[in-house]
């Protein structure tokens, strides 16, 4: 029978020998899937990428009742179609040999839409447990779910869960063990649920013909591990990926011709396009099912608008919405830079104390001390004090924004404006994050659906002045020239973003896609989850990005140690001195700024101090403005470049870097000469 997929027999052997159970968590976005994942796996998680894909892969482990569980948290998806990379990754993974069981997490407050994915997952015929989350909220709304009836209909375990409080979470694993044990010695047979999931007669008869065609004449199709029925449905849906797979099979033309004929027949019969027919039939099945299991006891006092509703209204308001958006951006920036500056200064102070004592005991000119201490330890401290202290508080703020559900509101407000830049409103999410730190913000560009949008978003995000850059701008221009000039610099930066967006929009092939986004209700952030997520994100950063930054710091330190300072300044002086009108020494500062942007200011201050003069005497007001502007624009910092390369390609990362260097020099020069010109007239 087709019910028995080849992968299951293989998996059976795995769990026999080692008592390992591989679980995939699947569900819509924002249903509490990650919360369940966190409850189960705690801090054992690793964040990686799906092989060859830019989709994030979350894995975790736990030992429970004598079994070792490997749990993969699949990306949040609405369907198993091909709309996004996440959907393709998910369905390929589920039918791979690495999944013994799916836990499908369902939001009880949004049953119908969530069950759409469930009905598609059922077609994959992999053992499954349904975890109905947010049961507490449903009960508060006086709605009851009949779990016995649900289990009866699905012929699968259906469990109530309140993920945020950990209720029902471990029961999921108990049931998982039961299921796995129950087919230990026999071949797994997925329950027959045709009574709830079959399509109308017209589609169903055609599906049966396709299925028997596949089973009888195209046995190789089954190599793809998908059940024949799933393939047949996807073929009718004109699913590109599946059709490409099928196309590889020999002599498949008659099957494809038959499919095309069926699609035409169905479309003629129903007067709608095939995907609409299939979707509406699935939703019809869902409606019938939901009617059987749901009871609304009584609707009580729904008049009073909840706090969440009021917040929703306010944050999407045509005036207050933008004010709040501005405050949020300002909040991210000030929180990140306040904590970052505070901790960074302490670490730097302690380090310079140590440095003094090291110099005292080993001598300042000792080459080994220079390489090991200044280069090695200095590079490490630089990365910690300059990057890590900003990144951690920043992750914390993002997690709050993400958990509460604010970010889609910003996308809603900014969609129209972002279209000018060739992308839709979602791009504002990484851009907002960019005000804290460009590194995770560029990584966050993975939420964009198409390659084109991802590329444009990354370019724009890398131009957002991060907390470190703003430190330079405020510390120099703000402190000595006043906030008006800061605002001017800021406007120039925005203008550059606008120009770059326009250029990329014009030059990149393809068109701007339209926004389709769910906006879930506001909810109280769960601090446990937020702290855990912050730690996990930081851990990933510490182990993956930080070593590279440190290595880069050390090599730079070594290069500069061998007195190449003078030649570098000499090489750069046509640019720094003649074109930008800056003192030649600033060339080295700008090079240091590649590691951490605020180093440009720190070194500048140190240098001026060594000369015994104040910064505002060392640099003229025009120079301060040019210097800050160049720092804002000239290059994404090294860590950002790495992230860009990982998200797209090294070629694109290099292109962006070159683009930004040339833009910074061009605009810096223009600003310099126009100020000099104006000053000349006055």
């Amino acid at each position, binding site marked *: 029978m087709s019910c028995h997929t080849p992968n299951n027999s293989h998996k059976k052997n795995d769990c026999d020998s080692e008592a390992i159970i591989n679980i995939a968590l699947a569900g819509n976005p924002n249903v509490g899937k990650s919360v369940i994942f966190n409850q189960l796996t705690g801090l054992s998680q690793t964040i990686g990428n799906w092989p060859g894909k830019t989709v994030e892969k979350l894995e975790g482990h736990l030992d429970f009742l004598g079994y070792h569980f490997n749990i993969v948290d699949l990306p949040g998806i*609405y*369907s198993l*179609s*091909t*709309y996004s990379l996440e959907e393709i990754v998910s369905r390929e993974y589920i039918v791979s040999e690495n999944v013994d069981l799916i836990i499908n997490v369902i939001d009880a*407050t*949004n049953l*119908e*839409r969530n069950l*759409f994915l469930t009905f598609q997952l059922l077609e994959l015929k992999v053992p499954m447990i349904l975890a109905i989350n947010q049961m507490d909220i449903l009960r508060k709304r006086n709605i009851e779910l009949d779990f016995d009836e649900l289990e009866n209909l699905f012929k699968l375990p259906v469990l109530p869960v309140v993920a945020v409080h950990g209720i029902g979470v471990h029961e999921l694993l108990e049931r998982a063990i039961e299921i796995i044990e129950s087919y230990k010695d026999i071949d797994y047979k997925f329950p027959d649920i045709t009574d709830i999931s079959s399509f109308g007669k017209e589609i169903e008869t055609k599906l049966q013909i396709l299925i028997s065609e596949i089973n009888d004449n195209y046995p190789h199709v089954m190599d793809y591990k998908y059940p024949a029925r799933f393939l047949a449905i996807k073929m009718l*849906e*004109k699913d590109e990926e599946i059709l490409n797979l099928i196309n590889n099979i020999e002599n498949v033309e008659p099957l494809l011709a038959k499919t095309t004929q069926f699609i035409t027949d169905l479309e003629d019969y129903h007067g*709608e*396009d095939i*995907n*609409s027919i*299939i*979707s*509406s039939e699935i*939703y019809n099945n869902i409606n019938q099912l939901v009617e059987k299991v749901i009871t609304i006891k009584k609707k009580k006092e729904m008049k009073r608008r909840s706090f969440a509703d009021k917040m929703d209204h306010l944050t*999407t308001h*045509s005036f207050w*919405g*933008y004010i709040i958006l501005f405050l949020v951006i300002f909040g991210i920036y000030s929180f990140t830079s306040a904590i970052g500056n505070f901790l960074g200064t302490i670490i730097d102070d302690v380090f310079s104390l140590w440095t003094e004592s090291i110099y005292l005991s080993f001598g300042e000119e000792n080459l080994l001390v220079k390489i090991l201490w200044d280069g090695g330890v200095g590079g490490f401290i630089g990365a910690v004090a300059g990057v890590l202290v900003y990144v951690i508080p920043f992750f914390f703020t993002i997690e709050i924004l993400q958990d509460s559900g604010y970010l*889609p509101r910003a*996308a*809603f*407000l900014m*969609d*129209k*404006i972002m*279209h000018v830049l060739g992308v*839709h*409103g979602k791009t504002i999410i990484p851009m907002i994050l960019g005000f804290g730190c460009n590194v995770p913000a560029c990584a966050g560009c993975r939420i964009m659906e198409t390659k084109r949008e991802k590329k444009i978003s990354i370019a724009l995000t890398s131009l957002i002045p991060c907390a470190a850059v703003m430190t330079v701008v405020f510390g120099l221009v703000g402190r000595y020239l006043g906030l008006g000039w800061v605002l001017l610099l800021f406007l120039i930066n925005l203008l550059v973003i606008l120009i770059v967006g326009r250029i990329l929009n014009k030059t990149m092939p393809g068109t701007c*896609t*339209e*926004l*389709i*986004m*769910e*906006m*879930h*209700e506001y909810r109280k952030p769960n601090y446990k989850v937020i702290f855990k997520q912050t730690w996990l994100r930081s851990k990933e950063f510490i182990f993956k990005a930080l070593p590279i930054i440190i290595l880069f710091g050390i090599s730079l330190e070594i290069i500069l140690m061998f007195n190449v300072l003078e030649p570098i300044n000499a090489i750069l002086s046509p640019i720094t001195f003649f074109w930008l009108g800056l003192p030649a020494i600033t060339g080295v500062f700008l090079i240091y700024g590649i590691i951490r942007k605020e180093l440009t200011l720190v070194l500048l201050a140190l240098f001026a101090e060594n000369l015994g003069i104040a910064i505002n005497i060392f640099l003229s007001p025009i120079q301060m403005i040019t210097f800050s502007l160049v720092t804002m624009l000239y290059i994404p910092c090294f860590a950002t470049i790495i992230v860009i390369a990982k998200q797209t390609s090294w070629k694109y990362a290099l292109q962006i870097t070159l683009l930004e260097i040339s833009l910074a020099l061009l605009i810096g020069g223009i600003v310099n000469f126009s100020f000099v010109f104006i000053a000349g007239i006055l």
Partner: protein
Amino acid sequence: MSAMRANHGHRRSKAEPVSLIKCLTECGRGEDVEVVSVNAGFNARRRLYNLGIYPGSVIRKKKDAPFRGPLQIIVKGTNIVLGRGLASKIYVRCGESCTFD
């Protein structure tokens, strides 16, 4: 159509429901409307169907973003935001209370 009939002097009773087919961007806020057709490209269309916006389903417009931005609609109890360009390709049947904006 109803306007034409009125010009020809026909009278219709107030109770008779009149439905108009409009694009989603034009229909009034807060009213349940039935989707008639979705004229977007293949991928966007399939996505909308999967989210519950297919011919025959009932949706409601909740809010328009400022400056002719995207629309917030309610589909099967969830808030979905749609870009205005896409929303203008979705045709719905709405009652008389619809107002052009």
